[in-house]
């Protein structure tokens, strides 16, 4: 059953191409078209993933021969209090990177829906700006904001709250939320833009009906806007949660994980283990755990927010 046997002449060839009809045998040739893409994906994504998993069972400095240690790297990662605490910090960052920006985005959209805002495009652009700035720029700017003699402390002193002034990024009590708020600032623009787009898809009749029924702003928000944005909220949460969990650049450029280990996160440990301290096996194990955590949380989110029909 080859194409040539059913050739009738001229255009008949096209409809006679094999591999389309249900029940027909699979044609391997078609998969050749996928091969280049798959090869690329395999070399740059699958192989590194599998290699990482493999390294995680070894004690390796990255150069000399590795020794098999079984699950020891995983046991160390789970039992070491510092490593464990980094995963705890990540969960706190989910609040600052995902929950808070989503809430702020929803609030802005809720207001925009009721109040006619002039220069909407301008505001939207300005509020979205943090998303497109390089994180190094963001980090440097916020380091200055948070510095001992920075603007935040200057304002506090001005209003007579000088005793609250401190190096926000250098204080055990404030460093973690201070870094977290930088994340909030960078992420809420993304949430807002997603939600504005989503709201425009909600049929205007629903709002009209609600208003005729006498619904107030709050009722309207919870009965129409929020359910209507389910899909967008899901996307926003997956993106921001992933960002929260693999947060590295902001930490690297602000606190280096300090003071002490109070802002240390898994990806920072992974980088340090892989490139600085040459504990490739331990770093690989932490990577696998982090990946599983991201899969777990984003998977749970998507299941929870799936549109039920």
């Amino acid at each position, binding site marked *: 059953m080859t194409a040539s046997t059913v050739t009738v002449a001229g255009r008949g060839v096209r409809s006679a191409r094999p591999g389309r009809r249900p029940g027909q045998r699979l044609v391997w040739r078609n998969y050749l078209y996928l091969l280049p893409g798959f090869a690329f994906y395999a070399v740059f994504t699958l192989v590194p993933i599998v*290699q990482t998993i493999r390294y995680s069972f070894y004690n390796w400095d*990255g*150069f000399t*021969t590795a020794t*098999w240690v079984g699950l020891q790297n995983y046991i160390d990662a789970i039992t070491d209090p510092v490593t464990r605490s980094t995963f705890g910090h990540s969960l706190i960052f989910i609040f600052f990177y995902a929950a808070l920006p989503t809430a702020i985005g929803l609030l802005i959209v809720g207001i925009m829906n009721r109040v006619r805002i002039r220069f909407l495009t301008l505001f939207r652009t300005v509020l979205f700006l943090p998303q497109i700035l390089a994180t190094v720029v963001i980090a440097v700017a916020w380091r200055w904001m948070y510095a*001992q003699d920075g603007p935040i402390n200057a304002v506090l002193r001005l209003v007579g709250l000088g005793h609250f002034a401190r190096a926000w990024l250098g204080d*055990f009590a404030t460093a973690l939320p201070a870094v977290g708020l930088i994340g909030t600032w960078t992420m809420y623009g993304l949430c807002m833009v997603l939600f504005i787009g989503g709201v425009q898809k909600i049929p205007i009749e629903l709002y009209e009906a609600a208003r005729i029924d006498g619904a107030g702003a709050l009722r309207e928000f919870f009965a129409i806007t929020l359910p209507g944005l389910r899909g967008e909220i899901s996307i926003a949460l997956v993106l921001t949660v992933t960002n929260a969990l693999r947060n590295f650049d902001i930490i690297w450029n602000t606190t280096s*994980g300090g003071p002490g280990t109070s802002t240390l996160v898994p990806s920072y440990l992974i980088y340090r283990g892989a490139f600085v301290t040459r504990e490739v096996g331990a770093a690989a194990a932490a990577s696998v755990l982090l990946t599983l955590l991201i899969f777990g949380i984003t998977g749970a989110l998507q299941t929870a927010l799936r549109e039920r029909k």
Partner: protein
Amino acid sequence: MKRTHRGIVAAALAAVVGVVLAGCAPGSSSTPSGKDTDFTTITKPVTAAQVADLGDVTLKIWADAGEKDTLDTIIGTYEKSYSNVKVDVTYKDWDDLMSTVVNAMASDNPPDIANGNQGFATMGTMVKGKMIRPLDDFVKAYGLDQGVPASGFDSYRWNDAGTSWGTGSIVGVGGATQPLGVFYNKAKLDKLGLKPPQTLADLEADLKVAKAGGEIPIQLGNSDQYPLGSHLLGILIDMFATPDEVNAWIAGGKGTTFDMPGVQKAVKTLQEWGDAGYFPAGYDGTSLDEAVADYAKGQGVFFLGGSFNGSTIAKTDPNGFGFTLLQNDSGKYVTTGTFGTPWHISSKSKVQPAALAFLGLLLSKDSAQVYADTSRLPNYGLADVKPTGAMHEAQLKAAQAFFANGDFVGYLDWATPTMQATLGAGAQELLAGKTTPEGFIQRVQKDWSDYQSGSKG
């Protein structure tokens, strides 16, 4: 149909997984390619004719960005003397260099010459992987062991296996010494009626006066978790413990422990300094660079650091500051330091004569003034160079006094690859009252034992 699709994808994935997992242990395929006998030893300096024999070649160098001013001048001289060699140099920031240089030296096409760093993480790995050429013959042939304290080479000496240092072959050499010491603001000392400290007791008395006088006694910026737990603590340990016992611990000596009386006293003293408010408010939120800049502009009476900080201070005000090393109880100068960031020659380099000639020129007395012009302290020709100002002059004098009667102690963070982080985070917690001196010492020692027992992957 759907099943079959899935089947194909699964089979493809399984194939990839299989291919990768079938390999033997990571690293075993890339067994050391450089052999011990890969190079010709030299007994006298490389001649221009030997370099000319190479034909037209390129000498690839990876260097710390801090070496740029010095290298730019040296490369000009070098290319004039050896016209068949073109120098191709890549400058990298310190952190960037540290995270890439070992990989580069392990590759099949490594730089011929590279900056590295002492300690197990960088130099140890390079020795273990036989990536670098031993330089004992080079040091002898060029007379680099003359007129400098022998202890300065200890941090460059490794056993063949790359598992311990302090004795063995010299595998790297630095060009400018970097003793940690005490910078002082002359105007502020005058105002407070103080003299430059000679001992730790002097310094502590001065700090008290400075604090009472409303000054910041010691300028500090520690947001990078550095230099409080490494340099400042190091300087204090140098004063309380003997160089031998500290060096033995850093080098991983059997039966040694960080929990020694000298270290206990030093850690306690550091904590007391923190409690006494000798450091500026919010120092954990200020970077070292910012703090050095602040100090150069007149904030703070003292600054504890190395000659690498001096360049910045001298650039701002070449005459307003002084520099001194501290003597321990037996009247000897003891401080953390080395002959500087090490230079290595790749064992795979095909232009070794050109590389040796380059390092020979870079480290010779003739190049001393090039270092001095950027307020650095050349190892060779220290006494003959012209200083950039009064502060540099004080640094040169201090280094000479040290070379005449001093002992180097290694940097504490060489002890294990993770030690920098352990000391840095631990010192922040110590001064914030989150841990005790005993807790700090135990944590450091645990890092050391974990590494020495090879239990960490």
